[in-house]
């Protein structure tokens, strides 16, 4: 029987502890993004940042079903994914500010945030590039006979690039342990994806390649959590790659610098009411969770990320010789730059 999503939690068999953890993690992502936007306003983040405010449900719904040793490859809008995969926000914020102690030692910034120690193989500045990298990680997992899963999260704009076809085809041909999640926020940069996309959309394209595909409301973290749990279980059991299209809405501009003039204010205001945090808070309140407990998640997250931002501001620049490190072993530019 399919439970009525408006029914009380007990009737939907909700795992309240798990959902409280989701609520808390979504607030931590929201607060991280708000701190990053503040850093941008204060001109301490100089490069582009792509906030994921409004899309926290996908980061949490997907990553909470991945083990630490599972692989995630992300996009330019990757802060939430990285945090949800288990990266340390202090190192992440230092990276956004280009400081010593950043995840990439200040060499990557927001668009190349990565933490290999938690299986996070990097945000990527090239749309759809993470699809091939995910297929490759999944290929290596299969060659090594491991039970890990590789996952990529990309935007709906990515389905018009070649790697969507080539990477999904590859994953299916080799029956790889890969989960592909399209974070479908309806916009490819600042252009409506529907205006530039033929056919029936991401899931239909994935199905045409032979991947079991499903559409999920990405702002309903309860539903997404279940969908990803089932997909990951099937993949880990050797069932081959799967595809999830998670509908969502980006509540800010494409970048911190984007005034978002192409969307009606009324639409954005309406979308705030469907934000995944608000929706989960409502479901939890309906299930009897006290309002002060939910408010504490927000307050604690803001406090944590304020401290993270303060730490990053106080952190030193990387030493200048770092610019020449980690290029290559043969022809190391510390000896051979010209």
């Amino acid at each position, binding site marked *: 029987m399919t439970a009525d999503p408006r029914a009380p939690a007990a009737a939907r068999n909700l795992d309240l502890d798990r959902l409280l953890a989701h609520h808390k993690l979504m607030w931590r992502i929201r607060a991280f993004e708000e701190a990053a936007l503040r850093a941008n306003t204060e001109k301490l983040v100089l490069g582009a940042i792509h906030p994921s405010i409004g899309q926290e449900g996908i980061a949490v719904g997907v990553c909470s079903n991945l083990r630490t040793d599972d692989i995630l490859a992300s996009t330019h809008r990757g802060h939430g994914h990285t945090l949800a995969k288990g990266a340390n926000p202090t190192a992440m914020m230092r990276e956004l500010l280009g400081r010593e102690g950043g995840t990439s030692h200040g060499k990557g910034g927001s668009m190349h945030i990565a933490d290999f120690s938690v299986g996070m193989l990097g945000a990527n500045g090239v749309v759809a*590039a993470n699809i091939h990298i995910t297929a490759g990680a999944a*290929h290596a997992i299969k060659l090594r006979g491991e039970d890990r899963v590789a996952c990529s999260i990309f935007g709906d704009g990515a389905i018009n690039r070649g790697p969507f076809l080539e990477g999904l*085809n590859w994953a299916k041909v080799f029956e790889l342990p890969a989960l592909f999640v399209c974070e479908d926020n309806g916009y490819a940069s600042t252009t409506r994806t529907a205006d530039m996309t033929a056919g029936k959309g991401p899931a239909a394209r994935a199905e045409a390649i032979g991947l079991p595909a499903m559409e999920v409301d990405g702002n309903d973290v309860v539903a997404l959590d279940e969908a990803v749990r089932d997909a990951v279980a099937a993949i880990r059991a050797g069932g081959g790659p799967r595809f999830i299209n998670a509908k969502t809405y980006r509540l800010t501009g494409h970048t911190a610098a984007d005034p978002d003039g192409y969307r009606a204010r009324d639409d954005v205001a309406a979308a705030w009411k469907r934000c995944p945090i608000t929706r989960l808070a409502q479901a939890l309140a309906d299930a009897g969770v006290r309002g002060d407990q939910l408010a504490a998640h927000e307050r604690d997250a803001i406090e944590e990320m304020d401290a993270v931002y303060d730490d990053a501001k106080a952190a030193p620049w990387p030493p200048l010789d770092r610019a020449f490190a980690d290029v290559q072993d043969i022809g190391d530019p510390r000896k051979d730059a010209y």
Partner: protein
Amino acid sequence: MVTMTYGEAAKNALHEEMQRDPTVWALGEDLRRGGVFGQYKGLPELYGPDRISDAPISEAAIMGVAVGAALSGTRPVVEMRFADFALCAVDELVNQAAKARYMFGGQAKVPIVVREPMGMWRSSAAQHSQSLESWYTHIPGLVVVCPSSPVDNYGLLKSAIRCDDPVVYMEHKNLWALEGEVDNNDPLPLGRCRFLRKGEDITLVSWSATVHEAMAAAETLTGEGASVEVIDLRTLWPWDKERVFDSVKKTGRLIVAHESVQAGGFGAEIAATVSDVLFGDLKAPVKRLGAPRVPIAYAPPLEDTVRVTAVMIAECARALMKE
């Protein structure tokens, strides 16, 4: 001492590296049939479909999958079939493979070998004949290798596979059948040139198939009483500056000859560097011999109009030695 062809040398090197290291695997189109030039023949039977893997005609996926697999503990050998086709995978090579280690702050390396058969071969025309090695020398993070002989193809491919950097490994299609002696089982160092001939009057620097033109020119010039030093650069990045400098200091004259287009070719880099560092030692201007900036034609006589030949190298050398 064993005699083998340039193609067999590479196959033997790959075979031995796959035997030595179970994380090495190869992927590319038609590999299960031995590769389009037969350079994998026999290996599918030895290593099975996982380690000598077929691939769809998806160069970008082949390269991108290799990057993901290299970041995840394996050492892929990527077969691009023709260097021209690798252009379909430039994002994956230049933006991903060459950048991942740096932009992720050294959290991982990308140990891939990208085999890109290059050069003019049997009326292959504009999309199957190019020599684009100089493009890759421009990209920080990449090592670029262009072997000219069986012994080097054997030893350098071994080193490329063992190297933790992404290596663009460009074999010349016209050399597959070239026979030569392979006198050791060890890898040869990347970044080291080979002196093919010692001499006092002029230095010829080349790589890949043009090395054989340089050697033929040296033979002719020697017959005319000149003493010619021939250097096979072998690795373009990093190039063996010190040994080239030592040679030019001695001879005072340098010609760099290559099959690729002269304008913006790697000869320009060598010429500029040598002119800068050794200005006072030069007895004549540094000369480059490369192809004119036109696509490569199909008809053999037209194809030949863009070839750098031994005759051209010898003629250029005679002129320089008058200075």
